[in-house]
């Protein structure tokens, strides 16, 4: 029996960026909290903590998900991808990160991990988006520095580069 309601711990196992990680969590812990506090993956940023800003977006089983709106216990058995896993093991950046660098698509960088994860998932399904479609895809991510212009351009560049790479493959 538990000492008080809500203190029952649950053991979870999650494949994070390809590696299995385990933790013991109480139900009210958010997925974002476990990523940051238990596993040290502080690239996932928490902005508003109620699903409005999109900074904490990660991929859960491949789908862009706000990690402040999922309890860690719910992620048991899932695959979670965070910004730390984007570039893989190589020395370089992910092509989308490279486009962000080239286009100066970030200033303070707080919103960037969430935007990258949103766009990675979006471009996978929509390799040739229009500018309007990119803006709609990003409607759930707030950036208070850039005015979005360079972010949208970077996304369009990355999409074009992805298409070129696919054509030459």
């Amino acid at each position: 029996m538990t000492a008080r309601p809500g203190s029952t711990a649950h053991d979870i196992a999650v494949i994070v960026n390809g590696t299995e990680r385990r933790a013991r969590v109480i139900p009210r812990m958010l997925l974002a909290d476990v990523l940051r506090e238990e596993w040290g993956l502080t690239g996932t940023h928490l902005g508003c903590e109620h699903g409005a800003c999109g900074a904490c977006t990660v991929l859960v089983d491949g789908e862009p998900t706000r990690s402040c709106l999922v309890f860690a216990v719910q992620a048991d058995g899932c695959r979670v991808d965070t910004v730390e896993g984007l570039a893989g093991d190589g020395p370089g950046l992910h092509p989308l990160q490279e486009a962000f660098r080239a286009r100066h698509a970030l200033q303070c960088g707080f919103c960037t991990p969430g935007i990258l994860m949103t766009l990675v998932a979006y471009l996978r399904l929509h390799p040739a988006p229009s500018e309007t479609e990119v803006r709609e895809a990003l409607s759930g991510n707030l950036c208070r520095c850039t005015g979005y212009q360079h972010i949208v351009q970077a996304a369009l560049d990355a999409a074009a580069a992805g298409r070129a790479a696919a054509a030459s493959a």
Partner: protein
Amino acid sequence: MRPAPFEYFAPRTVEDALDLLACHGGDAKLLAGGQSLVPMMNMRLVCPGLVVDLNRVAALGGVREDARGLRLGALVRQHALERDARIAAAAPLLAEAAPFIGHLQTRARGTVGGSLVHADPAAELPACMIALDAVFHLQSARAQRACRAQDFFRGLLATVLEPDELLAEIEVPGVPAPRTGHGFAEVARRHGDFALAGACAVLALDAAGVCRHARLVIFGVGDGPHLARATAGLLGERPSAARLAEVGRATAGEIDARGDLHATAEYRRRVAAGLAARALGRAAARAEAA
């Protein structure tokens, strides 16, 4: 902001979920996509002692077709409405409305049933389900019952659902009859934001172009989705643009509009009248072309 402590259960069957609800009643909260519930828990507007997570109940997650039409499990994700060809064929209104539901990230997780039981007055899906004359299948440990969408909503964030009941399945009447069209229109400050006003319509014409079925629902304006009464006047007529505009205005006038810091009541009513005419116009044009 973190939720108050709660106990967590993740049943695998509808029966187990219903037993938990029967035992804990008002202290338990069902968790589906969590895109409305978790923000409210994070802000401690809602503090359930027990959360019953439905995400591992496989029986609630499917899309099926049968002789009567389309059957959506309550846990079908909102993004399935934009991706599933069966839904686009049987209920194209749902596919058209889907991109307006929240954002990419919330549609990936948010569920059809969750949006319906949450009953936000600005939500697209309650309005669409009423326009489509969908039937909701409700279950509790005591009984099962069916409820027409138009009888399910009871004002601001309120429905007929009892504390020990869950919405299990949504039945959407099958492939639309020939010469049936749909229309959807909404205005929000930014794509994906809560609608300031919106409208959806289903309209059918006979071979002579005379209207024989018209359902129009306005959302985001009053305390809940509003099924138009004024469309009754369209039956037996050939709908002209001027008549549809008139019906739009009359329907907006039927609603007790809400004003808040985003828009005044008068603005909402005026915009809704225009959107209603637009939704009806698209529905009529599609019915004509079908």
